[in-house]
Every structure is written in C-alpha cells, then in structure tokens.
C-alpha cells in the first residue's frame, strides 16, 4: 500500500487515503467502495469507446455496451489483485482508471483484428514504400533497400517476424502477443532489439550475425 514517500515527493491526498481505507474495510464500506469504483471504471471505458468511435463504428451497439462492462469488470478485478502496487504516485482514481483504459483499449484492438490475418511481409514493404516522399526519391529507395537488407540479414527469424508485423504492418502489439502466445512486454522488447540491430546495420557500424 502507498507510503508517505511517493515518487514525486507528494503526500497522499485525502481522497486517495479514503479510497484505500474503504477498500481495506471488511464490512459494507468495502462493498460500497467497490460498486462506486466499478461505476468510475465503466465511465472511463465508455470514454474510450466514444473517443475511438472510428475504430468501433462497425461494432453492434449491444456489443459496445458489453465491451465497456467487461472492461470495467476486468479492471476492477486487476485493481483488487494489485492494490498493494499502488504507490501513491498519482491520485488513487487516476491509478485505478489506467486499468480501465488498458482493458478497453486492448478489447477494441483485439475485436478489430478478430477476423484479420497478420499482413504479409510484402504488404508491409509496399505500405512502407508508399510513405516515401516524392522529394529525395532516390535516397528513399536506397534507404528502403538498405533497410530490407538489414531485415533480411541482421535479424533473427523471430525478430524479423515481430518487426515486420509491428513496425511495418502496424499490427497492435497485444494482438500479435495473443497470436504468438507471448506477452506484450516480451514482444516489445524483441521489437526494440530488432530496431537497435537495424539502426546499427543502417549506420554501417556492425557486421555481426544474428544469434
């Protein structure tokens, strides 16, 4: 639970202290706090859905409502499980809301990619080439060729698959993590390593082969 010494040197505010006290209470106070917290989380989830209207335009209305309630449910469960991780670096409600945003955003991304295949590497390169500006076209083509060579020769097969999906094809990291049976954090770490290798390759400063 949060102590007096928070990361940014601020004392825990009275509202946050009250939330922690109510959630720590074994009686009806706790139940009332949980219901109130769920309502706050649902409001946050609905905010995400409204803000991402373009991404959820094709979702049936009932599905949107279900998605918001499920996100609030999942967020509440995560908060209860991880309450001891609250360090008081923000107000308690801000800390709690981030769980709702995480759950709602992941749900939207996964729903959007539910029936979509991960695009091929060729599709990724085509999309990337289309981003080239008309000015400096020659340099752009040379950089593109150098990058393709780097992806082919400087990355391990798994790094290559992750880089192509996440960086070239803009597949959401949580969607790819689900399909590759791994975690979002592990995939992003692999992407970071792949990007470092490619930067080094493009700068011509390394000739090492992938592990």
């Amino acid at each position, binding site marked *: 639970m949060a102590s007096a010494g928070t990361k940014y040197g601020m004392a825990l505010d009275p509202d946050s202290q009250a939330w922690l006290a109510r959630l720590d209470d074994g009686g009806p106070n706790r139940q009332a706090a949980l219901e109130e917290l769920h309502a706050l989380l649902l409001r946050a989830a609905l905010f995400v859905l409204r803000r991402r209207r373009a991404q959820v335009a094709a979702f049936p209305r009932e599905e949107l409502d279900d998605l918001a309630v499920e996100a609030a449910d999942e967020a509440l469960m995560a908060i209860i499980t991880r309450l001891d991780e609250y360090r008081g670096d*923000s107000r308690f409600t*801000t*800390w709690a809301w*981030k769980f709702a*945003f995480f759950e709602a955003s992941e749900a939207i991304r996964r729903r959007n990619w539910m029936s979509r295949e991960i695009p091929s590497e060729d599709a990724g390169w085509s999309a990337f080439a289309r981003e080239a500006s008309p000015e400096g076209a020659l340099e752009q083509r040379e950089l593109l060729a150098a990058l393709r060579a780097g992806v082919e020769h400087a990355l391990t097969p798994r790094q290559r698959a992750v880089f192509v999906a996440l960086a070239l094809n803009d597949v959401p990291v949580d969607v790819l993590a689900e399909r590759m049976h791994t975690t979002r954090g592990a995939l992003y*770490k692999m992407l970071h390593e792949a990007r470092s290798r490619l930067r080094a390759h*493009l*700068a011509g400063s390394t000739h090492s082969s992938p592990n």
Partner: protein
Amino acid sequence: MESGTVNDRGEPPRWPEALERVLGPDEPQVSCEECFAGIDGYVELEAAGVDAAAAEPRMKAHLDGCPACKEEHDDLLAFLMSQ
C-alpha cells in the same frame, strides 16, 4: 550509398519520417510493464503542466516507440483533462 552509412562529412544519416517511425526512438526506454506502472503519475504531471517528458525521458521514449501504450496514455490524459 551502401547501408545508409555516414555521409562524406562524417555525419550520421538523417532518416526520413517513415524510417524514423519504423525504427522507433534511439534513446533508452522503459518496458511496457514499467510504462503501465508509471503512466498514472506521468499523465498527472502532464495534466499539471509539468514537462513530464523531461522529468521521465525513458517513459517519453517508450511512448514514442509503442503505439499501444501511447494510445492508452492519450486516452487517460484526455480523460483527466476532461474531468
């Protein structure tokens, strides 16, 4: 040009925007898990008008390189600002 090496003046290459995007930030950065752990404090700094990027450069670098974390950050910040 071979592999985008340094130019004749010995300067590092200046990547076009598209290349910058796919290569992501070059700076040290936190992991997705660390980003989630610290994002509430980070957005409250931003909402208070503090230069959070200067205070937490490794968070800023991660947000520049991870679209999913950036999306959640943007939503949370917009929500806080609307309260």
